[in-house]
Structures are given as structure tokens and as C-alpha cells.
């Protein structure tokens, strides 16, 4: 290794034309959030007594949790399997997970009829409820993610604490506090890293248990007792594709050289994971003989085929191809297909498959619901960009001997 990779903040001009477009989408979303708070859920969404859950749960929460799986999969690879070469990607993955879960929590809050009672599950327990388990795990895991992120904050500010005006007198003590925090975290971090992986396995699978109680209301193509296992396996297989795709976008956006080696190594691990997921999914279909529903031509069967073929089979084939493994572009396309497949799977499970006995009007998300979902994704991207510019997240090559804080190479 001739170059020494080190995470550094990447100061840039924040607003580019793309960023401005994303900011507008975020602003529109926030307006609809405001409307929901003032006029109620009924005024903004197409939810009804027939369809109590819509895309705010199916996409923002279910797909959001799944697509934040990069956090725990890279933590397992980098820290638990102790593969040091992957340490450069753990920080971006951690940031994605932290922002992702934060917005999962915010989305739940918006969707709750009484968002101001969101703390109730902390003291009012129901161990029978899968939702209680998901709720508790997500709350604890979110805390763990913030703790895991703290060392990045201390690294950024130790020796650089510079409060303005009146607060100047606290500079020294704050710096001491940060150093003490850093030392303490350094010694105890392994506890939180393992906890993060365990909590992720628990709630990723429990998210699958969630719809089992809906029983015959859910289309048999998706309703199966092994839903928790399928959810866990698909979350595990979408973790690395998320990291690959994001790393590609970040390198494009900030004009850095893509981490071809690491991306290829990560890519080589995706195919086995996807293969396991696919075999369980198809095995389940054969055992329960639900393939008979594929002969019908309707939304459910079409969505199921798209989910399996475009979201699992095609990327599985792509990740096995040597040419794809060599090209960052090809890897990102294959990674995107996996992300699309898991995204569609969560949406299918929570929305498409949900077919209650009495339907007066089938559900399609309203403009308000779509705007809020798009707005939250936009906000996440904006915050990611801001964090990458402020904190040492993305690793760039450090040439020994250069005094410059970082160097950037164009693609």
C-alpha cells in the first residue's frame, strides 16, 4: 500500500444545481408534514379503515430499515470479522444507518395518530406484540448508532474547540470533556458494536413478523411463517449493495476516485448472500405451493415476478460476472438492482400484499404521502452531504510528506 487512506472532512460548495433540486423536494415534503400536523392524517393521506397503513410505513419505515442494513453488515465485517481493509467503508455506512434510522423514527412519528405518545412503549410493554419488539429495538439501536458516531465527533473537535464570544471560557473544559469521552468510548466501543449487530438481526427479522398476524388478509405469495427469516436474509444481502452504490455516488459527487478494490471485494460477497435469500424464497414457494398464484395475471403476481427477477435473479447473475466485478459502474448498477428488489419486497409485503376482506376503494398513495416520503429521502441526502463536509467520514489518500490536509484526485 503506497497510499495511506484516512477519513477527512471534504469542504466543498454546498449548493450545486442538483442539491438545489433535492432541497426543493425536501421543502415540499416538509410542507406536507406541516399539513399533516395541522389538519390530521385523513386530510393528507389516502389511508382509511380498510387500509390503515400506507407508504409511510411500507416505504419510509420498512424499506428504510432494510436499506440502512449497510450499517450492521459492515460493522460485522469490519469490526467483528476484524477485516481492517474495510474500515474505510464503515464510517459512510454508519452515517447512512444513523441518518436512515433517524428518519425511520421521524416517519413513525408522522404516521402515529398520537405522535406525542411515541414514548409510551418504553413503559407500557406488550411482549406479545411484534411491533413492540420492533419499536424497542429501533429505539435502542438508534441510540447505539449515535454512540457509535460519537468518536467521529470527538475526532473532529478535539484540539479544535473554538466557541465564540461568551462561551470562549468553556473551550478548555469542553476539550477535556471530549478527550475523556473519546478515551471512554475507545475502551467500551466493542460493547456497542456487538449490540448494534444483535439489535439489527432482531428487529430486521421482527419487521417480517409484523405482517404475519394479518393472516389471510395478506396475499399467500408473501404471507409465510418464515417471513422473519426472509426479512433478515434480504436485509443482509442489501447491506453491501447499499455501501457500493453510495460509495459510487459519493465519489462521483465529490470528484474522488472510486474504491474499486473494496467495491469489488464487497461485490463478491453479495452473490452468496443473495443466493441464500433466493433459495429460501423459492423453497418456501415450492413447499407452500404458492406458485399456483403466478398463473393468475394481476398486480400481485406481476409485482412478485418483478421483485424476484429484476430485484434478485438479475443482480445475482451480474455479481457473478467477472467483467462486472471489475467495473465500478457495473457494480453500482448491480447494487442498485438489489436495492430496488429489497425496496420493492418491503413495499409488496406491506402494501401490495395487504388485501382486507372488505374493500370500498383500493389504496394508492396520495400526493401528500408521496411528497413526504420523497422529502424525507431528499433530506437524508442533504444531511449526508453536510455531514461528509463537516466530519471525517470519507477516506481519501494521504500522501506522506504533504502538508495539505487532504488531496483530491479527479476521476
Amino acid at each position, binding site marked *: 500500500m503506497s497510499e495511506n487512506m484516512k477519513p477527512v472532512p471534504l469542504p466543498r460548495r454546498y449548493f450545486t444545481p442538483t442539491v438545489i433540486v433535492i432541497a426543493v423536494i425536501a421543502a415540499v415534503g416538509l410542507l406536507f408534514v406541516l399539513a399533516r*400536523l*395541522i*389538519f*390530521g*392524517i*385523513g*386530510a393528507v*393521506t389516502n*389511508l382509511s*379503515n*380498510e387500509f*390503515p*397503513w400506507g407508504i409511510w410505513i411500507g416505504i419510509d419505515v420498512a424499506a428504510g430499515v432494510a436499506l440502512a442494513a449497510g450499517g450492521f453488515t459492515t460493522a*460485522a465485517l469490519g*469490526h*467483528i*470479522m*476484524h477485516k*481492517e481493509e474495510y474500515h474505510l467503508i464503515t464510517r459512510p455506512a454508519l452515517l447512512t444507518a444513523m441518518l436512515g434510522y433517524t428518519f425511520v423514527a421521524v416517519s413513525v412519528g408522522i404516521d*402515529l*395518530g*398520537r405522535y406525542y*405518545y*411515541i414514548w*409510551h*412503549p*418504553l*413503559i*407500557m*410493554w*406488550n*411482549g*406479545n*406484540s*411484534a*411491533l*413492540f*419488539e420492533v*419499536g424497542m429495538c429501533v429505539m435502542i439501536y438508534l441510540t447505539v448508532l449515535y454512540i457509535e458516531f460519537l468518536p467521529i465527533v470527538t475526532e473532529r473537535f478535539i484540539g479544535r474547540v473554538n466557541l465564540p464570544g461568551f462561551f470562549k471560557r468553556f473551550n478548555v473544559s469542553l476539550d477535556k470533556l471530549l478527550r475523556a469521552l473519546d478515551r471512554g468510548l475507545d475502551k467500551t466501543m*466493542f460493547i456497542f*458494536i*456487538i*449490540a448494534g449487530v*444483535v439489535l439489527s438481526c*432482531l428487529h430486521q427479522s*421482527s419487521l417480517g*413478523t*409484523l405482517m*404475519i*398476524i*394479518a*393472516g*389471510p*388478509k395478506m396475499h399467500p405469495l408473501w404471507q409465510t*411463517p418464515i417471513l*422473519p427469516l426472509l426479512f433478515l436474509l434480504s436485509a443482509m444481502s442489501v447491506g453491501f449493495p447499499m455501501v457500493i452504490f453510495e460509495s459510487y455516488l459519493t465519489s462521483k459527487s465529490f470528484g474522488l476516485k472510486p474504491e474499486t478494490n473494496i467495491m469489488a471485494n464487497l461485490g463478491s460477497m453479495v452473490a452468496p448472500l443473495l443466493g441464500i435469500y433466493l433459495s429460501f424464497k423459492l423453497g418456501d414457494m415450492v413447499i407452500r405451493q404458492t406458485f399456483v398464484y403466478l398463473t393468475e395475471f394481476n398486480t400481485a403476481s406481476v409485482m412478485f415476478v418483478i421483485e424476484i427477477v429484476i430485484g434478485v435473479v438479475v443482480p445475482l447473475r451480474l455479481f457473478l460476472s467477472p467483467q462486472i466485478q471489475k467495473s465500478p459502474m457495473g457494480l453500482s448498477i448491480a447494487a442498485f438492482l438489489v436495492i430496488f428488489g429489497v425496496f420493492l419486497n418491503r413495499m409488496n409485503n406491506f402494501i401490495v400484499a395487504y388485501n*382486507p*376482506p*372488505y374493500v*370500498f376503494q383500493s389504496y394508492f398513495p396520495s400526493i401528500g404521502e408521496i411528497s413526504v416520503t420523497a422529502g424525507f429521502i431528499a433530506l437524508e441526502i442533504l444531511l449526508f452531504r453536510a455531514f461528509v463536509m463537516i466530519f471525517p467520514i470519507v477516506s481519501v489518500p494521504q500522501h506522506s510528506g504533504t502538508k495539505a490536509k487532504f488531496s483530491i484526485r479527479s476521476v
Partner: protein
Amino acid sequence: MINESRRKFLKTSALIGAGITGLSTKSVKAEPKYVLDENRMGVLIDTTVCIGCRKCEWACKTAHDLPTQPIESYDDRTVFEKMRRPDAKALTVVNEYPPKETDQFPINVKVQCMHCDKPACVSACIVGAFSKEENGSVIWDTDKCIGCRYCMVACPFQIPAFEFEKAWHPDIRKCDFCFDRTKEGKLPACVEICPMEVLTYGTRKSLIERAHQKISLYPDRYIKHIYGEFEVGGTSWLYLASKDFHELQFPKLGTNTAPGVSEAIQHGIFAYFVPPVALYALLGGVMWINKKKAESNKNKEVHHE
């Protein structure tokens, strides 16, 4: 056994939690109750007698302080043109199914919460706001509810309704088996008002006996099926009918309890917290071994240099 000790554990934990936050024990009392009382009450609905007068709808609204039109307006039979479902403003509704042949009568079916013996809503509710009471009713504690609507997703009969139009403090509403009235020894409002004695209030056991008697006494009048006797593990409200329940838009449900599979998985994953703790220990071990290995590799490299 497992369930019981688990409940005990949860109860103590909840008590500790309540103690810490200085809450009254009132919130703890509404823990889901899974001990079914032998003499829990129920209602037998004989759909062959119902004339669709909808007096029960009026009585229900009046008993639950819901806005209602004067009782005379309920004679309007045009409402039967469309199927209706209970919602947050009407906890029970009557639907009419026109006869297939001209010499037959239409069939009227009253719809409300079935008050399951093993209710999905009680199992699903994230804060345990729902409970199955000794007298058979499934009620909910509005002070706990956070409005997540998981009960609506879980209910096999599609009963709980939500006040979507409310921006502040929306409620989940459903039939509560007139819990406040029966406590005082009164009949449920709909049972009391019914002029045709369609509804019979009694212990579930006696109602099932009576229903079987009716079926054997009048085999031409009833089909041999009491809806609710075995559906989703049994319900407190039971139906008799002259034709297949599926034709009257009753959901076709198995005899397994609605929360059975989901609870088995939940308790499997969390059996005394053993699986999560074991996973934690396993990962910790793997992490330690890998770290040692990496360190010894590093030392070797240093020696070679």
C-alpha cells in the same frame, strides 16, 4: 407455563417501569389477559329473525354518546343499497342481502366487533391498550393508545376504526360490548332495544348449547354452522344463518387463533432472552478471536522486518 412466567416477568418489569416513572398502577392493570373466564358472556345473533329495523344502530350511538339522527329516520331502508361497515361514528351497522328467489325474505346481518377469545388486537397492540376482560368483552384503554393502527392491520374481521379526520388525539373506536352498561347489570344497548329478540345475551357456553338446539330443532331454517364457535379460536359473539356465511360476506377463517403463529415466533426469538444473549456472546467471541489473530499477524510482520 411459559406464557405464564413470561407474563409474570413482563408484569414485574412493567411495574418497575411504572414505579420509576411514578405512574399509577392503573396502566399496569390493563395488561393483556389471557385467562379466559369459564362464564364469559356472549351474544347469539339469529340472522333469520332480523328485520333490519336498525334500532340497534340508534341504541348503540345513544349509549356511546355518538351523534345520531332521530330514531324515526332509521326506518329509511335505502341505506341497504350499499354495504356499510362499522366506523368511528357507528360501532355497529346492519346490512341487507336481497333474496335470490322472489318468495324468500332478504337477510339482515348486524356487524360489530366479534370479541374474540384470542383477539389479534390484544396481541398486536404495541402498548397493550387492548384487553380481553373476564366478562368476554374486548376493550381498550384510550389513555395508552398511540394511534399506530396495528390493531386494524391485525384484526381478521376488519373491525377497529380510526378517527383519521382528527389532527389532535384521534381515537381507535370499536364495539366495547357495552362494558360500562353490563358492569351495572344492564343489557348491552343493542340487545335491550331489539324488538325481534334477534340478539340473545348469555354465557358463551349456554349460547352455543342453545344454538345447537335451534339447529337440531329447525334443520330447514338453519345451516349446520355457528359462525364464531370455532373461527379464529372462538368468538364471544356468535351467528346463526339460513345460508352459507360466505354468501353473507363473513370472512372465511380457519380455526387457528389469529395471533397464534406470530406469538409463537415472537416467543421463539425471545425465549427468556436466550437467543439474543447467545448471539451477543457468539459475536463477542468471534470478534475477540479475530482481533487476537490480527494482532499476532502484525507482530509476525514486525519480526520479519
